[in-house]
């Protein structure tokens, strides 16, 4: 994980941790089957959570092949999808989670400096 931090710093853009950081996070990761893509997504999600959220999170992994009704309930169309159920508002992140910066921004954990200013 030091690599990530370094990468973020190296990007020369100032990133601010959002104030929501201290709140409790409830996340759900929807994957389809035990494909390599699924496994990688699960791994990425766990890693990001542990690193950025510490103890403040709950991550549920749901295999829609096993529980298709949950895919219907949550309106899942693409996998992998990471859903931030809490804190509000609901966020849906689609696609693999290897790009940590984008994921953190997507979860409102980081705010890009330029956006914050405008």
């Amino acid at each position, binding site marked *: 994980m030091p690599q990530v931090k370094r990468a973020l710093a190296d990007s020369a853009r100032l990133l601010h941790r959002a104030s929501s950081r201290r709140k409790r996070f409830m996340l759900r990761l929807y994957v389809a089957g035990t494909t390599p893509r699924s496994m990688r997504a699960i791994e990425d999600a766990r890693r990001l959570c542990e690193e950025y959220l510490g103890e403040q999170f709950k991550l549920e992994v749901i295999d829609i092949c096993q529980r298709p009704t949950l895919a219907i309930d949550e*309106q899942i169309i693409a996998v992998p999808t990471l859903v931030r159920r809490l804190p509000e508002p609901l966020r849906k992140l689609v*696609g693999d989670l290897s790009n940590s910066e*984008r994921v953190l921004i997507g979860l409102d954990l980081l705010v890009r400096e330029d956006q914050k200013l405008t």
Partner: protein
Amino acid sequence: MGALPKAPTGIQGLDQITEGGLPQGRPTLICGCAGSGKTLFALEFLVRGATQYEEPGVYMAFEETGEELAQNVASLGFEVNDLIAKKKVIIDHVQIAKGEIREMGDYDLEGIFVRLGYAIDAIGAKRVALDSLETLFVGLTDTAILRAELSRLFHWLKERGVTAVVTAERGDGTLTRHGLEEYVSDCVILLDNRISNQFATRRVRVVKYRGSRHGTDEYPFLIGARGISVMPITSLGLTHGASSERIGTGVPRLDAMLGGKGYYRGSSILVSGTAGTGKTSLSAHLVEATCRRGERCLIFLFEESPSQLLRNMRSIGIDLEPWMRKGLLQLHAARPTLYGLESHLVTMHKVTEEFKPSVVVMDPVTNLSSGGTITEAKSLLTRLIDFFKTNQITTFFTSLTTGDQNQESTDVGISSLMDTWLLVRDIESNGERNRVLFVLKSRGMAHSNQVREFRLTDRGIDLMDVYVGPGGVLTGTARVAQHAREAAEALARQEEFHARKRQLDRDCIALRAQMNTLRLDLEAAEEELRKIALRENSRKETEIEDRLVMARARQADPVVNGVHRDRGRKRKEV
């Protein structure tokens, strides 16, 4: 060689132009502009599959919720909620809000696949509708992924063996905005809602249908009380049964002209003629005769209001109002220009299906062409006639022809569709107009080739023989005058005969009297003759006696022989 298996859509008319339905187990693309009826098409395909063909279906709605859909089609008699409860149909609403999803990286649409697969397995679905996949392009931006996934989806649908309909919005110059036609190669159907002459007409065209014959034209369709109904042109299937039952025309003399029995049930009858020739009156007679038999009649008026028709028909002694009150007669009046031809068709279909008449009158049919072009009007009529014939409804059309054109052609060129064609024509002579009626054709019956004079009296239509003589066809007062002249001539002949007879009688009497006189004269003459002869005889005898006496007195030699002989012969003679 096995024919391509097809899944009947149950949509009225569509199965005819696709010759059986959509390709079974394959996806079909339904494209069209907004509001062209794609969603209804897809939903009707599923509902009819579930209700008529025992094929449960899954509807994946990307734009509307299941509840909205059910509400929208409830007016068409589709009990979607009921079908859902019976596990015949599943509606899965896929909600994609723009901006709700943030794309992080690579993904696939396994979510769609899983949900679809789950729904298909849950009810054993044979049919799937996806309405419309293009919404994905709104919610998701990575078109490369989307395209790959759509391609995979269509393969997957084929593998599952479900008959699928996929709707897509029409693009600029292309069939679909996002090129979905690239993936669906088996069957593409285009829906269109075009406006011409300010009237909207819906049309459907089978753009392609791999491995199957299909109608290639554009067929108008309408969204009516029972869903979509495509109206294929008659020639596709001339399969309606023909009844040999006859129904009276309401004019006894006209029945006589039509083989003595009138029209065939379920046939189409056209009456053409110039203005005011009594076309409507002929129709009123038919209507009255039909109602009298206790059958139902439906009249579509494009020119007169119902009350106007009732009043006018009362003037020729036909009161239609009691039949209206009894519920045997319905009148529908609408200006042809009030709405498009398609809407007219809808109304006529709807009313006919509800009222179930045995006779339909359209008066005048020529006016319909003012609601569209002539070709459109003709195609409308073709479809209408087809519709009526398949339902064994006798149709009576009146057609207004203008005076100067060839009367044996009609404005909309529909005469070839007609079974019986009557022509009412004006004949102008001696400063008056008179109507004559011909039977131009009447399929399947021996009909009169005679012209009849056609008179409107206060007791209805009266047909009379016209006078056809050396002076041509005489009608009206000329005919009356001719009849009078003939009567006078006959009377004169009669009188002459009587006079001559009397003369001859007199002659006979005179001759007989003459004969009597002559006979009396004859008798007198004969009597005289007898008397003369007797006298002569007795004279001769006396003479001989005298001679003998004298001879004896002279004592002459008896010339015995001569005297004897003489005496002997004379005695004999006496």
